[in-house]
């Protein structure tokens, strides 16, 4: 199919299906009002209507049956109960598959049609025969569609009021049309029908919207109306053209309908924008930020106060533009979370546990690319929580907990990053079992000196799994290390808290955006590095006494607290002699405070993150590069992984393998 409107149809249908799913899940849990049923009906109705325009008769036939069942629910002729909601969910999935087939441009496949028929039978059995007849007529209609070859035409004819007085019978033209091909759909247009007082029995007020499948050309079809050519307004369009115009119209129409029915608040107006255009804009703003920084430097050198002022004003504006542009990419995490309702429901059923999903912070916004890339790790964590975390109902009752387990997804902003938590109130991690497994796998030799968090960190090691039984869902030991790797690739970190018997919480910390950061520029030898500004607490000078005891004492006394530090020069093996003065940048990251020793403090800057080549994908401690106002490149420190590197190397005697593993 080369239809330009088709992608719009597919995207729209998928959105509607997502809405439908949410509403159906509500119904299934038994806490849905008539609004939910209406939403489901509307979704089915719109999908049916749009598919009809594209001649996707398979979807029309199937959805029609679902729609008529929903119509009965709406009319309170049929109760919406758990069982019905479950079947409707399956039907929804089937529609999604049908739409998927269209999206892939494949022909209808027999298995899918058979599956659809089975589903409809199931639906009919549940709802009692009355919709069966509807299904049957539709099957017949579908067969007729398939039999009628040739192109599809949309004929829109509006007879003038005088047509009857001129001795013409509109019906005869339609009858004649059916000799040219198959009339697949006919709708009466009654919008001109006046009120009864003004009604003139001799006048014609009617129009028809006709869909015709015919091998004849446009001229023959037009010819059918030859005798009334003067007395009607006729439009004949081939189907593809009609579909395109209709979706454009429909979009406006549905929007009108919605506001009229005050379903959505009036200010909920959104625009579909091509993601590439947005990326291009953000790229350009990135360049603008860099160019702006260069201008500021030049202005400062020139020493003209007026120029300085105007560059400052400009910089402020650029900053605002940047923030706004980045907001364009920000989307709420709610819809992503809602998708897990389905995952939880299906998985919990499969393994026979009672589990409820709670969602918090659905309005938390983060970068769209981040949301896309975080879905897989989240799915994994949620499945893990259901499969390993939550106990069976019997065990839960024995432990004095409610039979229904709770998995909680929560998102919130925390000091320049976004935190996503996956928590369960299940059995928690068993320290001894993890240690035993780790020793068995040769990850460690002796675990007695490890803290709980160090022990829990072991489950993120490759090839580690403590599940006693490998289930269909998880437990093959390919899980948590992949989660960690995926999150690290997004410049994020994973932590895990657990209390035996009370549950487990996995916390994913992600940067707000992948495009631009506020940074703090430092120099070591001839190299420049950027530290994400939100991590910097303060800067202090490194006293001489610490410089002389190089290699021995790696901490200072910062106002009474111990502050361990690392030397960037040593970490990165920078070949230059130590500077005359050194400073410590105090960093707070993932709940720890430590210092980074550098030669020079070069101040704050806004920087655009330029990803490094794949060549450097294995590098630790560096997250990307950025172009300074001078055109020079500086490297951006990846502080969490730098910290990991220090922690693991200091644990080396206890856990030698950790130091090597990524």
């Amino acid at each position, binding site marked *: 199919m080369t239809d330009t409107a088709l992608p719009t149809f597919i995207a729209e249908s998928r959105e509607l299906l997502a809405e439908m799913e949410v509403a159906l899940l509500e119904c299934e849990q038994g806490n849905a009002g008539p609004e939910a049923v209406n939403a489901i009906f509307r979704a089915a109705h719109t999908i049916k209507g749009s598919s009809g325009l594209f001649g996707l008769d398979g979807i029309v036939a199937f959805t029609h049956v679902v729609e008529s069942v929903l119509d009965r629910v709406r009319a309170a002729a049929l109760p919406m109960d758990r069982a019905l909601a479950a079947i409707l969910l399956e039907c929804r999935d089937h529609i999604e598959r049908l739409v998927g087939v269209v999206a892939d441009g494949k022909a209808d496949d027999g298995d899918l049609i058979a599956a659809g028929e089975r589903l409809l039978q199931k639906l009919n059995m549940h709802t009692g025969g009355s919709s069966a007849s509807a299904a049957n007529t539709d099957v017949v209609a579908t067969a007729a569609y398939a039999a009628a070859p040739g192109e599809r035409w949309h004929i829109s004819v509006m007879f003038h009021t005088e047509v009857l007085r001129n001795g013409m019978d509109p019906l005869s033209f339609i009858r004649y049309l059916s000799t040219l091909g198959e009339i697949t759909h006919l709708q009466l247009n009654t919008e001109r029908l006046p009120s009864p007082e003004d009604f003139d029995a001799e006048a014609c007020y009617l129009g028809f919207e006709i869909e015709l499948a015919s091998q004849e050309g446009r001229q023959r079809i037009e010819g059918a109306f030859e005798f009334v050519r003067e007395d009607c307004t006729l439009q004949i369009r081939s189907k593809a053209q009609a579909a395109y115009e209709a979706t454009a119209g429909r979009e406006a129409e549905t929007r009108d309908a919605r506001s009229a029915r005050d379903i959505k608040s009036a200010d909920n107006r959104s625009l579909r924008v091509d993601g590439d255009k947005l990326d291009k804009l953000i790229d350009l703003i990135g360049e603008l930020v860099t160019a702006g920084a260069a201008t500021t430097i030049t202005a400062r050198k020139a020493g003209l106060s007026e120029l300085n002022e105007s560059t400052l004003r400009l910089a402020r504006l650029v900053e605002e533009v940047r923030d706004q542009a980045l907001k364009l990419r920000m989307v709420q995490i709610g819809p992503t979370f809602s998708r897990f309702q389905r995952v939880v429901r299906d998985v919990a059923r499969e393994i026979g546990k009672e589990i409820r999903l709670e969602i918090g912070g659905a309005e938390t916004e983060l970068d769209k690319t981040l949301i896309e890339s975080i879905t897989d790790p989240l799915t994994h964590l949620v499945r893990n929580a259901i499969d390993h975390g939550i106990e069976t109902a019997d065990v839960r009752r024995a432990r004095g907990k409610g039979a229904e387990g709770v998995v909680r997804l929560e998102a919130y902003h925390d000091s320049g990053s976004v935190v996503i938590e996956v928590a369960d109130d299940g059995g928690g991690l068993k320290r001894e079992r993890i240690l035993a497994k780790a020793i068995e796998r040769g990850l460690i030799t002796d675990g007695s000196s490890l803290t709980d968090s160090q022990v829990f960190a072991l489950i993120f090691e490759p090839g580690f799994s403590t599940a006693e039984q490998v289930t269909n869902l998880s437990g093959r030991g390919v899980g948590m290390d992949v989660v960690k790797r995926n999150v690290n690739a997004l410049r994020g970190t994973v932590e895990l808290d657990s209390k035996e018997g009370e549950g487990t919480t996995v916390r994913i910390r992600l940067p707000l955006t992948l495009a631009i950061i506020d940074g703090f520029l430092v120099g070591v030898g001839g190299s420049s590095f950027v530290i994400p500004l939100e991590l910097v607490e303060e800067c202090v000078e490194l006293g001489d006494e610490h410089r002389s005891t190089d290699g021995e004492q790696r901490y200072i006394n910062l106002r009474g607290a111990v502050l361990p530090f690392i030397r960037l020069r040593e970490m990165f093996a920078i070949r230059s002699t130590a500077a005359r003065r050194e400073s410590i940048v105090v960093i707070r990251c993932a709940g720890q405070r430590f210092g980074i020793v550098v030669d020079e403090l070069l101040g704050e800057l806004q920087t655009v993150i330029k990803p490094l080549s794949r060549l450097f994908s*294995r590098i*630790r401690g560096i997250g990307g590069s950025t*172009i300074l106002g001078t055109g020079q490149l500086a490297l951006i420190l990846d502080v969490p992984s730098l910290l990991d590197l220090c922690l693991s190397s200091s644990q*080396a*005697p206890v856990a030698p393998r950790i*130091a090597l593993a990524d």
Partner: protein
Amino acid sequence: MTIPADNERRHDQNQYLTFVLGRETFALGILSIKEILEYSAPTEIPMMPAFIRGVVNLRGAAVPVVDLSARFGRPSTPVTKKTCVVIIETTVAEESHIIGVVVDAVNEVLEIPDTEIEPAPGFGASIRADFIQGMGKVRGKFVIILDVNRVLCIDEMEMLTQAATGDAVPSAA
């Protein structure tokens, strides 16, 4: 255009850029070459093997720079006024990468017809045999035509960088 595009392409395919590295002359097919830059010190990337000099700013993109001498397992040559960075695009498995290579000097663009190209010798060349695409005869001498996708193979270099970062982790016994 009077020359058919197809012909032009064939013509391009036989064109090579020759350059000097140490005392030897090498050649690269010009189709993979994007541009030639004057040498400016790249930003060093810590914990990288010697053949990676660092990254340079190429109109807003961070492009890695490879020291070709070091890649061939020879000592790096000193930077002179003639030192250049040749920006090359490699394509491996439909994924393209932009990489710069440091060379001592670029010479000229030559046409070497296929008939003048000998297969690589099994041994005896100064560099790894799989790096050599062929031996081109130019004015009675041989120049080594490099197989750019092998010399700058991302997967292989990535593995080498991992070895280097692994070593850099202290006390990783």
